[in-house]
């Protein structure tokens, strides 16, 4: 990423890497690791929505968790508004968390079933903002209204709500501490299409109204196109392509991006090439370009070196050595 992007950024990620050790390795064998994320660098500007797409096992969720320091990186750093998160001690980190929140996929699992919605919303208000009693209650109600629910919902338990309503509550809870950055990991994937549209609109409106920076992780390319400003494509823990959303969808430069777009059920273009095979094991990723084993354009050189992420045009980067192919 260029330095000008970094100076504008709210969140800057440099060389982020995460290897999970594999348990159960027997004696005498070398210790193995799942290489979930390899050398990922990115920036998110204030008020910007960055999409992260890729198949299962591409490392997109791990990137989100690393950025909030919910898991410790093997290497690399995350800088939030000038503050290196890795340098924060446990207490300082806990305090710092009010600036960055997360929304999960499954609203049935992410809310405490024994806590009323009002209490669930007041908890972060008390913890992060120090609100008490009446103030906290008023603020909780204000949050509910912000996400399209009403005062009398506060006394109910999560089980009384539908999936879409629960996701609204999860959003309200994420907003409680007035964060500036939210990681949303597949926030609409568990919802029916009609409800999905509703929650997406809500997220988009709130994001714009509050000027939130958002990392939007999804496997659904059509959803990502609607809500994001820029998109990053991951494969086997590595960045394949980054571009402004229109650029990426109109002119994908990496064969993997093109393959993903063509596999989407709504694809209408003429040349539809179905990608064969499956994502390889992250324990022993292919040498050179990790995508080469499934890439229809792979040549011998692709196995030699790991392609660097190069800028093709302003803000459009790809990690592929071949410029002589038409996608």
């Amino acid at each position, binding site marked *: 990423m260029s330095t000008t992007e970094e100076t504008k950024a709210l969140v800057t990620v440099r060389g982020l890497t995460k290897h999970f050790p594999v348990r159960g390795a027997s004696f005498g064998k070398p210790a193995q690791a799942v290489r979930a994320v390899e050398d990922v660098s990115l920036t998110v500007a204030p008020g910007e929505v960055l999409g992260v797409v890729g198949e299962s096992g591409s490392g997109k969720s791990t990137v989100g968790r690393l950025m909030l320091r919910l898991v410790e990186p093997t290497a690399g750093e995350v800088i939030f508004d000038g503050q290196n998160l890795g340098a924060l001690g446990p207490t300082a980190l806990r305090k710092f968390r009010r600036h960055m929140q997360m929304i999960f996929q499954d609203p049935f699992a992410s809310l405490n079933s024994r806590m009323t919605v009002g209490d669930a919303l007041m908890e972060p208000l008390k913890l992060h903002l120090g609100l008490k009693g009446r103030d906290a209650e008023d603020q909780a109600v204000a949050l509910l209204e912000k996400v399209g629910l009403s005062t009398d919902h506060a006394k109910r338990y999560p089980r009384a709500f539908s999936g879409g309503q629960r996701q609204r509550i999860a959003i309200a809870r994420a907003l409680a501490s007035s964060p500036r950055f939210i990681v949303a990991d597949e926030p609409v994937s568990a919802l029916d*299409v009609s409800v999905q549209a509703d929650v997406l609109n809500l997220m988009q409106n709130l994001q714009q109204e509050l000027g939130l920076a958002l990392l939007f992780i999804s496997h659904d390319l059509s959803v990502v196109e*609607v809500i994001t400003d820029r998109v990053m494509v991951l494969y086997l823990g590595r960045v394949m392509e980054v571009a402004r959303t229109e650029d990426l*969808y109109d002119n994908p430069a990496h064969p993997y991006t093109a393959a993903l777009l063509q596999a989407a*059920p709504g694809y209408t273009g003429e040349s539809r090439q179905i*990608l064969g095979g499956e994502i390889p094991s992250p324990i022993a990723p292919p040498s050179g370009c990790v995508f080469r084993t499934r890439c229809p354009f792979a040549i011998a050189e692709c196995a030699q070196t790991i392609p660097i992420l190069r800028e093709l045009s302003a803000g459009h980067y790809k990690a592929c050595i071949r410029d002589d192919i038409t996608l």
Partner: protein
Amino acid sequence: MPQRDTSLAPAQHVLSVVDLKTHFFTDAGVIKAVNGVTLSVDEGETLAIVGESGSGKSVTGLTVMRLLGRTTAKVVGGSIHFRGRNEENTDLLALSEKAMSRIRGHDIAMIFQDPMSSLNPVFTVGDQVAESLRVHKGLSKRGARLQAIELLRQVGISEPEKRVDAYPHELSGGMRQRVMIAVALACDPRLLIADEPTTALDVTIQAQIIDLLRKLQKELRMALIFVTHDLKLVKQIADHVAVMYASQVVEEGPVDQVLANPRHPYTRALLDCIPSRRDGDGNRRTLKPIPGTMPNPLSPPDGCRFHARCAYAQPECVAIEPELQVVEGKHVTRCIRWQELAL
């Protein structure tokens, strides 16, 4: 207004479901999960049943397979006729459990969303494909194994000679779904019911499985019922589509006609919820969610089930329970205003 002619001899279709009613008798009351569904599918044809959670689409499939537990679920009306290999027309609801189990997995097969829970974890995939061949086709152990390897090859599993001895947990989600398809196809069924078979898979793998299903269907001339929540997939795989809402079919017809010229406000609304490409100027399309929620299945609304969420509802929509009406040819809709609405 012309109403749909359901008197057509059911014998002409591979499967013909007429006015099916499957109700669940729960402590809280009666849930009419499927309430008057009429569907048919012919040889070599794909019918997609599309709807949101709770629309009754899966229960319809399970009723045809007679896989619903007898404790709470009951078929209280309608008929399901199936034309088997010998061209004999059978009323599936009248069959004994034993006779049904001969048809199930042999003449009619089903695949589900989650292949991990439908495959048995303690048997190899080869055993599971072979089991069906031994039970229904009476093949020897050796013969069944060889046939199983052939089937695994047919569904696109590489090195089937090795994979035949693998256990389900050793395979990826896409591979497991291929194994499920191999199990389903083992006896060369006339009808395959696929209930959200690609929902748990990545898009690239989904595209592979859809491609495979289409190819196999063409080769084997099966009738295919594809249950899904995804209208975009319907376009790719189906000839006919039935849109279900709150236990009823609200619109049905050839895919091209229904999707290009929907004649029910719910179908239109579903299409409008789908995020699509930006317009020519690069502007984001705003999504139009459907207001409100699915009606409570214990007490569905009077009149048209969709009236409370419908932008075009009028007083008569609450008063009259609409019947399916013919739009054109095989295209039918359950909306009394279909002729006047510009959807």
